[in-house]
Structure formats: C-alpha cells, structure tokens
C-alpha cells in the first residue's frame, strides 16, 4: 500500500502500535499467501 497510518494507543501504561492501510493487498501477509 502507498500509505500506512501509524498510531500509538496507551491504556494502563500499555502502549500498542496500530498501522492502518487503505487497501489489504500488499499490507496483509495472509492475503498475499492466498
């Protein structure tokens, strides 16, 4: 995907990173394997 948005979210001191793309192909490994 051309653009991926990266966002960190913290709850109760646990920070996790989210990455979001406009399309699945090229972003989701499991779809690429199909």
């Amino acid at each position, binding site marked *: 995907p051309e653009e991926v948005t990266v966002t960190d979210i913290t709850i109760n001191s646990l920070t996790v990173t989210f*990455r979001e793309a406009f399309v699945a192909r090229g972003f989701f490994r499991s779809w690429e394997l199909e």
Partner: protein
Amino acid sequence: PSSEIELIFCPHPLLVNNQQYSQTRYVKTTANATVDHLSKYLALRIALEDSQSETQANRNMEGEPGATSNSSLQDVSEKQFTIYISTTGGQFSTLNGSLTLELVNEKFWKVCKPLELFYAPTQDQ
C-alpha cells in the same frame, strides 16, 4: 515481543448507518492489544478524520484555509465504540474490553485469515 495480528474492521451492518461510517479498515497491531485499545484507536481515527473533513469543508466555503476545531475534535474523540465479532448463525457477540486480540483470535476466530471485527457507537451514550 508480541506477535502481530491482522484485522479487518467494518461498521456493524445492523447498528451503523451506511452514511455514518462506511469505511472498512485494514489494521495491523500486536497480539497483546486489548479490545479497549482497539476502541480507543477507532475513536481517535474517526475524530481526526471528521475534523479533517470539517476543516476541508470550511476551506471550500470560505475560500481560505480553515482552522481545525479543537472543541469538535475533543467532542468526537470522547465518542465510544463497542466492538463485535460475528458468530455462528449471523449473530454478533460484544467483545469485553479487557480481552486481548490474541485471546479473541484463539477463542472466536480460529482460522488463518485476518480477524474480522465490527464496530458501532456505544448505545448508552
């Protein structure tokens, strides 16, 4: 380090008006993220997108750059979302906020495909 989870995140087909939120979201995060993390992430992303749309609309109306409305961003970011997963028979189960996505994957999904979840604004707001 926690393993990565791939998510397809869609508006709840029964609880969300198509014009309200129509976007399917392709998301990756770590398996230790909880449903609450996901809910907060969604609230933030939608608030930012709404705020950007509003700014763009202001620009179009006034013919000059508009400022992002911090008050509206705060209002929208306080909106809460409930997360659902599809179960057998076309039913939807509400996911508890404290569940990790790893647990959701193991307990409800069990297939080697991106985890498919649904979202809708929390009803009692």
